[in-house]
């Protein structure tokens, strides 16, 4: 089920009422919210729910063994077993086709040929997210950072419908304690929730889809047929599109959870205002960044084992972070660019400790490095990516470059500079209005957003494919 659709609106209205009605009765609320989440997830294909249930069962079993066994070796075996299972799921559904194709190419390349059948496997939506969440849960139990939970709680942690499809990646100690305490129906954080949901809809429909349709998709479809100005607008346009698309989704996810009384972690914190790549990764897809830091970079040794190993760890983390997005060399290169830039930054900091770029220059460099990396993220192959970069300096007529599109790109960056206090003022103002005014205002934005999308409908969220 997709958020801004008729089906979801009806689904959420029912879930909202029943969820609050059952809050005083946790033994009834838990099966209800789990069933609702499975219904949401299985809307397209019910078989995906079986994969999710299998993941919850295996990870619950492993975490219970870890929590109860007095033997360190047994605990470790349970942890490794769970991680192998989780990564195995990911490998089969997400990477098997890629590895088979690459093996076939390699065997072909040395004249051996191959009889391995190339098969296309359906990728269950959100598998990368719930798998990472499962790994973080068992590792946290192993580390003693969270208590082993019941199967029901683990299943809800993984399947909770606002975040299952595209995050945020929630850690057990963020959601499980909330599940154990009934929510207060007298104090729903409605101000931030409404702003997040409505803002997310506007970001997705008015900015992301519009930029995709009018400039990004045409240019990436055939960069050589477009002038330098059009390629440049698509270059920055995709940065704006992916921010509005992905943060729009997670804003809606966080807002919907808030309406049900649950707080999910922040996933974006004005990323395009970052003054360094390190700063960018503290602001962009924050729940993935901290996952990679806590469960990959630090276990690899982080920055504790000397300079060379620190750079190695940064590169491994970013390359695997790229591969997490999809089985493609373009994603690997995207991760490689970030890894290289982060390493270069670190090197410069250590080599020239007193040197600081002016803030405007630091912003300019950071933003443009991020945009160059996005080219590889968006392009269907390396050839197209280099064609886009090569097309930036060309001349020619530019009918696709229009003032409204330039405005959308600038606005998507500029809006991040709006002080938080202003948003809080607006939320407080909205909360103080009568219910009818609030409802009419929200309804009017939905009508306008639907008009912006037009008859082609809302395009799938970019992060659905991951």
């Amino acid at each position: 089920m997709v958020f801004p659709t008729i089906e979801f609106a009806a689904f959420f209205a029912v879930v909202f009422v029943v969820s609050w009605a059952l809050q005083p009765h946790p033994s009834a609320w838990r099966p209800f919210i789990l069933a609702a989440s499975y219904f949401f997830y299985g809307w397209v294909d019910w078989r995906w729910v079986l994969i999710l249930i299998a993941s919850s069962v295996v990870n619950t079993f492993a975490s219970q063994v870890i929590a109860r066994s007095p033997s360190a070796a047994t605990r470790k075996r349970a942890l490794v077993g769970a991680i192998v299972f989780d990564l195995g799921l990911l490998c089969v559904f997400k990477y098997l086709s890629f590895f088979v194709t690459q093996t076939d190419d390699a065997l072909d390349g040395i004249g051996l040929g191959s009889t391995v059948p190339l098969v296309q496997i359906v990728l269950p939506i959100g598998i990368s997210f719930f798998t990472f969440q499962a790994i973080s849960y068992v590792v946290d139990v192993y580390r003693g950072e969270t208590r082993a939970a019941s199967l029901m709680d683990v299943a809800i942690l993984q399947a909770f419908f606002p975040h299952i499809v595209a995050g945020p990646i929630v850690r057990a100690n963020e959601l499980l304690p909330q599940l154990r305490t009934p929510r207060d129906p007298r104090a729903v954080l409605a101000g931030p929730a409404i702003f997040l949901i409505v803002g997310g809809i506007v970001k997705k429909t008015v900015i992301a889809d519009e930029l995709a349709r009018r400039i990004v998709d045409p240019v990436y479809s055939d960069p050589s047929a477009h002038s330098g100005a059009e390629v440049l607008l698509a270059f920055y346009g995709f940065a704006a599109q992916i921010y509005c698309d992905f943060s729009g989704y997670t804003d809606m996810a966080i807002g919907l959870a808030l309406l049900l009384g649950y707080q999910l972690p922040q996933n974006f914190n004005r990323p395009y205002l970052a003054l360094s790549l390190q700063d960018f990764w503290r602001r962009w897809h924050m729940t993935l960044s901290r996952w990679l830091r806590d469960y990959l970079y630090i276990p690899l040794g982080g920055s504790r084992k000397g300079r060379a190993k620190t750079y190695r760890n940064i590169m491994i983390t970013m390359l695997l972070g790229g591969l997490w997005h999809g089985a493609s060399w373009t994603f690997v290169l995207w991760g490689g660019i970030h890894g290289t830039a982060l390493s270069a930054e670190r090197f410069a900091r250590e080599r020239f400790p007193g040197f600081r770029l002016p803030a405007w220059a630091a912003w300019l460099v950071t933003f443009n490095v991020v945009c160059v990396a996005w080219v590889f993220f968006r392009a269907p192959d390396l050839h197209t990516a280099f064609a886009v970069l090569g097309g930036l300096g060309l001349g020619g007529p530019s009918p696709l470059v229009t003032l409204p599109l330039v405005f959308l790109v600038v606005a998507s960056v500029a809006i991040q500079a709006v002080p938080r206090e202003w948003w809080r003022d607006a939320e407080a103002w909205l909360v103080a209005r009568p219910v009818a005014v609030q409802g009419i205002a929200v309804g009017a934005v939905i009508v306008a957003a639907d008009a912006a999308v037009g008859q082609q409908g809302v395009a799938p969220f970019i992060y659905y494919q991951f």
Partner: protein
Amino acid sequence: MEPSADRDLTMPAGRVLGVILIALAIAALFNSEALVRAGEGMKPGRTRDIVLSVGRPLDDAAGFIGLHLPREGLDLAFGQEPKTAAGTELERGSNAILRQNRKKEVRQSFVQPTRAHPLRVLVTGDSQAEFLGQRLIDQGPSELLDVTTVARNGTGLTNPAFFNWEINARQEVETRDLDAVVMAIGDNDGFNVQTPDGSLYDPGDPGWETEFARRVAVVSSVLSSGGKRPVYWVPPPTARDPKFNRIFRIQNRAVERATRAVPALRYVDVYSTLGHGRYSDELTIDGKRVLARQPDGIHFTRDGAVAPARLILDAMAEDFPALRRR
């Protein structure tokens, strides 16, 4: 999400429910046409029936009291063109358009592309058009082709209440200067069809094939602007699911039939040419095996779309010899 310490940003759940219900009511009333259209675009089933049974009377009532006006104003402001309308030839025309056209026997001639004036091609249709358009660009002589791809996801010829391809075709030929059109469509055409005389046919009925052929003829006539430019029609390829293949075979026959009536219409037979009419996830292209189909067993992957794109180029080369692949 940190709540503000000095302001109350909370509301009771009951009030929130009020906001949700009012917002949904406003959206449904002022967007009733979109509600009906969304229902029309859904797969047949209970959800579609519910949406339409609520949406249609709501839309009638909203139209009656003038609640369509704000949305029409917004559509105008956002530059949205209507893609549905009543009384088009697609829904009301006659089968006379399917009568064999004698002119067809004489091959038409079109202005040939040069480096100075490359062939302006529109690749359109449903979601299948996306990769075909991309691959047409890199498989053809790039200096002789200027390709624009506009994929209308989820659309077909059997559901003009959701998306009317005759109207869209008129808008495309009026707003673009085109030398040729590639139309790849049919993946979403599993619906029953109503003929202009009111008869209802399911896929598989002989009447369905005739009606589908008529609709192909109507849309291709508009796209060709009465023979001014060729239209290369690409019905769906074989699918993994035999249920789809039954419908796709009928569609292919219908398109072939329409080509006998519309002089500028060309049928590109991907169905029986690729894999000799047998479905496979993979294809061998230039001696290399590639994963040719997406997990749904219908759509081509980007790698796999090379094969149908070459078939389209071969068909185009019949009219534009300079496009012949070397």
